């Protein structure tokens, strides 16, 4: 579930719904907490979080896109 909306913080302004380029909040309405209808279509670029005036959006990073990392010998 990419964007995760904190219901307590959300002021239901619908700005994330307006701006999302992928329309993952499709069918959500102003005045209601947005629903992430198409989570798999998220591009993970945070248009919604940038727009949100209430800081109500967080992200759960899907397991499939976790980045592998390592300390190289000179970094240990």
């Amino acid at each position, binding site marked *: 579930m990419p964007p995760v909306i904190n219901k307590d913080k959300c002021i239901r302004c619908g700005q994330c719904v*307006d*701006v*999302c*380029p*992928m*329309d993952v909040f*499709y*069918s959500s309405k102003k005045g209601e907490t947005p629903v992430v209808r*198409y989570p*798999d*279509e*998220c*591009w*993970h*670029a*945070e*248009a919604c*979080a*940038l*727009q949100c005036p209430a800081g109500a959006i967080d*992200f759960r*990073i*899907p397991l*499939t*896109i*976790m*980045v*592998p*990392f*390592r*300390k*190289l*010998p*000179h*970094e240990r």
Partner: protein
Amino acid sequence: METQKFSVEWRDTDFLCVGGGIAGLMAAINAAEQGMDCVVLEKADTRRSGSGGLGNDHFICYIPEVHGDYATFISDIMKLQNGDRLRQMGPEWAKSFFMKTWDIVRLWDEWGIPMKHDGGYYFAGHAVPGRTRAFLKYNGIDQKPILTKQARKRGVKIHNRAMGYELLLDDQGRAAGVFAIDTREYKAYVYRAKAVCLGTGAPNGVFPNANRGAWAMRTNPLNLTGDGRAMAYRAGAELCNMEMPGLHAGVKYFCRNGQATWEGVLRDRDGVPIGPFLEKPDPLYGDITMEVNKRHIESYTKSARSPVYMDMTGLSREQLDLMEHWLRQEGNSTLLRHFRQEGIDMIDTAVEFSTYVLKLPISSGIVFNGGSETCVPGLYAAGDEGYGGISGAAVTGWWAADSARAYAADKSLADAGQLRPKAEECLNLAEELCAREDGAHWLEARMAMENIAWDYCGDLRSHAMLEAGLAHLRRVHARARETLRAENPHELMYCLGMLNLFELAETMFLMADERRESRGQHRRVDYPLQNLMLDGKRHFIRKNGGEAVMSWR
């Protein structure tokens, strides 16, 4: 079957820009400034849509006072990533393009897109140590809201959440309008226009994503489905080099364009650099290894030598903070959020890189000239439709408006009757896709197409495989047309996008079969040599009376 009824609205304008990306908005701004009535049709929302939607940070440009002699500048540029595309457009085009970039830099700065860093022009990345640095670092994160505001200020009408699907031609074969669907309501629009500009961006099909399961995590946004190319092709415009796949590399699994923002050195697990260019990070140049050969990472990994890492060790904390700033300017806020969540501090931790899978590159696209004109009268194309990059989109979009204004001056809108039959055909298709009670989801169709593209026209090609693959692709395409099903207007947008991608995949197969040589990422096992006689030539395809016709020039 109960057809889903759409309401239809006819609208008129002088100049219709399909796609409100960088190219479309710049075309609209220039057209409106010159007094044209102008509409931008955008399938998402111009404030955040497209490849530049969440920002970019490299703007290739020529600034005389910084670069000095143009001859040295262009000779260095031709050796790198942009060289092939520039060669395709020709030296005269390249020169007028670069001369125009400087104007755009000043315009954007004036409009509030910060093009300077620390009070000056700062060029870095995509460069060979010691040679010309042509990429201006800029703060692009809010470029789209700013360009949208500039367009509105000049009276441009922005029509968000509407997808252009078909070009409508008048009875003389001129571009005279567009059929579009609303992506949120059961609604269709028929636009009449004196001139049309396509700026729908880079298709991110037709090959499968390397990262299975994360099908939306592609180098470019998922909703870029090559609509402009497919519309142009169906209308008789020329496409070129559709068989020449592109390749990109970047951070592993979190697939995205923007490799040059990373300032570290590519190293193996023992810390040995995999390329010859850098021993320690150099923010001014970046490790150009990937740009010389994007497959190098893949080959390194496949030969089981080691995974390949992007290693920032050697950057000071201040330098690393600045690199993270640029990553944010390029839409990588979530990636940085992920690093924070996982406790990855790049100061002493390297992140893995990989070569991504083949894709249709921006240089495979609509053919347009120095005025951004296609061969269909009244039809223009710009940006990633056929050239690429932020400054590429800004300049070619700007030029499209100049040409369209001159062309439209003595034209009037076509009679509605001339556009109606095609518009009705499209409407029937949309209604049918929404009325089907069961059938294929667009994603099923997409995966089918991607499997076929990869298996028969992937990284090793031959006549026998291409012929068999094309036959199967056509069967699947036909069946998709009969069975695709959209549950709502959002899914309808993707169903129509799929039909467009099928069409582009077919041109790729046809052209790959016709190109009897190996070159770049087009590798024919039955024609392993490069045919030197094709050097400097472009390969074209267009529809003539329903038949695909190919040629070389």
